[in-house]
């Protein structure tokens, strides 16, 4: 697995669903993509069902939807889906053998942990995920493991059904809002505890309030953090300028080109629209 941004072929590909199974409150969608480039951790793809993409709630969806690669192995791309609206609903109902369009891999991936201070000589990574935002942390954990980097996953969920998504990662520490699994409270409490242990590079993906809390904590603790943002997207490849977030010092960057992974230091705060479904 490489940390290098993979390039997407310049056309959406018509691919076949190899499986689509329940994972607690989520679905794990596997797609056969033998010829597709392997994504770097943090990259995403734009997905749309090949048939009947439309005609749902308010006659939507129309545009493709962005999903982080949760895994990519042996020509199989995996995505973790949460049904939050007409687009995700249509993808969630796809059955084995049905077709979808995929454009990807897209976007700027995670970088390996800093070897330089403040990280200790043996770099340590903390993977902080919230809800369906855990998806890119799975493929990231694989990549870190392959390099022998300790990568502890701290995963927060709204409830026990969602917490089952944690199966996607190795040996995660879990927090739930309703206390039904793991720590009864916020995942950021787990992060604060871990940062007491020693410095680390923090990787985070999840709802905007979680990302903002992670950002603030890491700023305060002066540890580097890479945030995988989300944003409403029309294209995913820099064409529409629709997916921007405001950056520190003014101006906007496109989440699909400069991100989805941005150094937390580039942001004054994480905008309410820049996170995963809560």
């Amino acid at each position, binding site marked *: 697995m490489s940390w290098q941004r993979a390039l997407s072929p*310049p056309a959406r590909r018509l691919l076949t669903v190899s499986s689509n199974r329940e994972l607690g409150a989520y679905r794990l969608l596997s797609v056969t993509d033998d010829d597709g480039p392997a994504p770097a951790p943090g990259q995403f793809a734009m997905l749309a069902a090949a048939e009947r993409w439309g005609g749902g709630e308010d006659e939507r*969806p*129309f545009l493709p939807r962005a999903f982080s690669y949760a895994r990519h192995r042996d020509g199989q791309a995996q995505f973790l889906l949460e049904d939050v609206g007409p687009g995700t609903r249509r993808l969630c109902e796809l059955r084995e053998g049905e077709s979808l*369009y995929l454009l990807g891999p897209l976007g700027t991936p995670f970088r390996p942990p800093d070897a330089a201070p403040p990280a200790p000589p043996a770099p340590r990574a903390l993977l902080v995920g919230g809800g369906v935002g855990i998806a890119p942390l799975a493929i990231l954990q694989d990549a870190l493991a392959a390099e022998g980097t300790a990568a502890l996953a701290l995963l927060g969920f709204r409830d026990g059904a969602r917490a089952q998504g944690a199966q996607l990662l190795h040996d995660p520490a879990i927090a739930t809002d309703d206390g039904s699994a793991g720590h009864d409270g916020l995942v950021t409490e787990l992060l604060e505890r871990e940062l007491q242990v020693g410095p680390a590079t923090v990787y985070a993906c999840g709802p905007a309030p979680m990302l903002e809390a992670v950002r603030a904590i890491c700023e305060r603790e002066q540890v580097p953090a890479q945030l995988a943002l989300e944003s*409403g997207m029309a294209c995913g490849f*820099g064409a529409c*300028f629709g997916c921007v*977030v405001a950056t520190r010092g003014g101006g*906007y960057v496109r989440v699909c080109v400069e991100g989805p992974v941005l150094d937390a230091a580039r942001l004054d705060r994480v905008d309410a629209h820049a996170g995963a479904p809560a």
Partner: protein
Amino acid sequence: MSVEFCGLRLAHPVINGSGTFDAIAARRAFGEPFAQAFPFAAYVSKTITLQPRAGNPPPRLWETAAGMINSIGLPNKGLDGYLGEDLPQLCGLRTDSACSPAGESMPVPLITNVMGSSGEQLAQLVAACEQRAEISALELNVSCPNVETGLDIGADPRQLERVVSQVRPHTSKPLIVKLTPNAADVPQCAQAAQQGGADAISLINTLRAMALAPGAHGGEPWLGGGSGGLSGPAVRNVALAQVAAVAERVTIPVIGMGGVQSAAHARALLDVGATLVAVGTESFRDPAAAVRITFGLMSNG
């Protein structure tokens, strides 16, 4: 299939709509070879203004029934930034050879789209572009509904004719006027643009539209810019009506756009009198949409 447009030779009749394809970002996403297999026969830049603009605060997008509203707000580096930083990167694009008449890749001429809030500003933009050989033609955006220029120049035929004739002397390059669809009598606007000296007309730009924030109950707009512009299949038949009416009225070439998703949609615009067809929103769904459409036109005439 190769087309002559205002003295330019194009590989095929399919180009992009301004602001719907960033060739520089696309090379970053798809790699350098993409520049040599470019999906469009000519490349239209995003709208450039005199001063740099950051664009509107997010959210900037709203998905509608069979379409989308954008409230991008014309972010751009300003004239100097565009000429200095972007232009060098936009030269040397060549068409996908599979979409060219003799199976040969052809150069992709660059059309620069500019907008100003007055005839003077537009003249200044055009005069600066006139100096640059990399630019093959100019498009005046007199129609963008999501920026508060005060007046919408393009909706008033008399004002439009005045502005175009003010700009005309500053360039010998083909001058395209991109109309607003939010006008009472679009063919009359087209005629005014021709009278003012336009070499071609392009339409339609987006229809003024808005969306409310879901869940909110005070009528709060969703889009950071308040309102925005509708594009995509939802506007296709509005575009077809306007393009047909304009093509009937003017004697200069027309670039038709609005909701084109397939060769049949492109063919319809050509059939009612357009010389070129532009693809906008559909490229978001598939960056190779224009290739697919061009293939379709080539195989079905």
